[in-house]
């Protein structure tokens, strides 16, 4: 018995020693790993700013390039001279490494110049609060073009982007909402693109508005109401046709005789445009 106890105790002791050695090794490893990781984090520098809206679309470059080539080659071959690589580059440089609350229209000027193209007269179709309907319409009736049917709008639709002063310069985690700061990359882009789209319009232009919206079909805080109507050129544009649409089975909050439509008409008439309005244009 004592002999067996002796060997058992030795075995126990060995096991204990081995266990302690393993624990020590694990501890050392953990400390080493932790120091490597924190050093790497410190080398990366300051963290990126945090915002409330979704971050830059992943694979933005591939998406934008693919859309640019798709638009030019497959849809509008007459734009074959457009250099999609340069266009992507000019978009990237508009926001990369910049604080996303400090974006200006100058930042987008090169992109706007490279990607803009003439719009045939009588084909411009503006819209407000009718996103779904207006784009289904232009997909099946290629006689009209919304901003999202131009190269600039087509590339940027449903995509988001913003930069950050720290590497790698693009923030994929979050981007500022308009409520956080107005001069963010997305808002500045769409304001500029809308302004140029309005400036390029000629002949008869159309606008599709939503007569089922409680707040009124025409709003002066919308992009249409604050930017587009003021950038239509009276020397180029002769008439504005309003298409006032109601949700199927929805309320008829406003018709062509409505309050906000009257306001829109007076603003346009003051700028010398002829106006017509049609309820539920077909």
């Amino acid at each position, binding site marked *: 018995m004592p002999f067996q106890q002796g060997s058992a105790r030795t075995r126990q002791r060995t096991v204990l020693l081995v266990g302690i050695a393993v624990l020590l090794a694990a501890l050392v490893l953990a400390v080493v790993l932790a120091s490597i990781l924190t050093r790497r984090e410190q080398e990366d520098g300051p963290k990126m700013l945090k915002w409330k809206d979704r971050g830059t*679309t*992943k*694979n933005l470059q*591939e*998406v*934008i*390039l*693919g*859309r640019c*080539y*798709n638009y030019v*080659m*497959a849809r509008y071959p007459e734009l074959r001279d457009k250099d*999609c690589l340069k266009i992507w580059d000019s978009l990237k440089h508009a926001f990369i490494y910049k604080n996303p609350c400090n974006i200006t229209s100058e930042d987008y000027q090169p992109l706007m110049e490279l990607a803009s193209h003439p719009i045939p007269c009588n084909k411009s179709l503006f819209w407000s609060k009718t996103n779904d309907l207006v784009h*289904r319409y232009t*997909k*099946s009736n290629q006689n009209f073009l919304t901003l999202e049917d131009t190269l600039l709008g087509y590339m940027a639709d*449903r*995509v988001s982007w913003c930069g950050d002063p720290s590497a790698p310069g693009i923030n994929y985690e979050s981007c500022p909402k308009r409520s956080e700061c107005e001069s963010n990359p997305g808002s500045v882009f769409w304001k500029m693109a809308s302004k140029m789209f309005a400036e390029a319009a000629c002949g008869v232009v159309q606008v599709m508005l939503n007569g089922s919206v409680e707040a009124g079909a025409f709003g002066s805080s919308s992009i249409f109401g604050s930017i587009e109507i003021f950038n239509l050129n009276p020397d180029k544009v002769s008439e504005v046709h309003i298409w006032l649409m109601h949700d199927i089975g929805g309320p008829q909050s406003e018709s062509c005789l409505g309050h906000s439509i009257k306001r829109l008409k007076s603003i346009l008439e003051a700028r010398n445009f002829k106006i017509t309005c049609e309820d539920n244009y077909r």
Partner: protein
Amino acid sequence: KWKGEGTTLNLESIVVGRCYDYIRIVNPAVGEKNCLEIWEAFKNAFIGKDPCSVLPKDYELFINLSFHTIPPNKSLFWENNRLLVNSFADRGHRYMSLADTLFGYVTDFLNWCGQANSTGLDYESCPTTEECENNPVESFWRMASITYAQHSSGVIHVLLNGSADGGAYPVPGFFADYEIPNLQRGKVSEIVIWVVDDIEGPD
């Protein structure tokens, strides 16, 4: 040399871009896909080959990499009304037509072919199906149609054109030759046929 249009310019950028567009924006529910691998598999199906010797099964790897399930009751088959189907399906919101799947989305409306003994794409011309059946584009859509039909389930819909010359149900046709034979009896509960006439077209 051939009678058909040549390869679409910037084919690689368009296919890769559409792939990312699909997984990031159009239908992120399909999860992560390796778009560069998908392009390679697609290209290797026809690059360096005589464009009259490309078979549907050459696209097997491409299909495997780009495959995702088709939600039950959402399949929409069609003949002779491509634009109507596109807008009716609404990019998968209402129905998921073949062009609304990843494997159909990346190549819809594009054209491509290679040449024997060359690693390049032929931008000059590509064979039409009349010139030879086993051409890259025809074989692609045959493989894609077979796959689409095999994985359709529940109530399936087919939209036919009642104003088409020769009748609403064309034989031969993709639906007749590659889709109907590959519908799975155990998966499909019902087939709903819609015959639609062109507005102001013949009945």
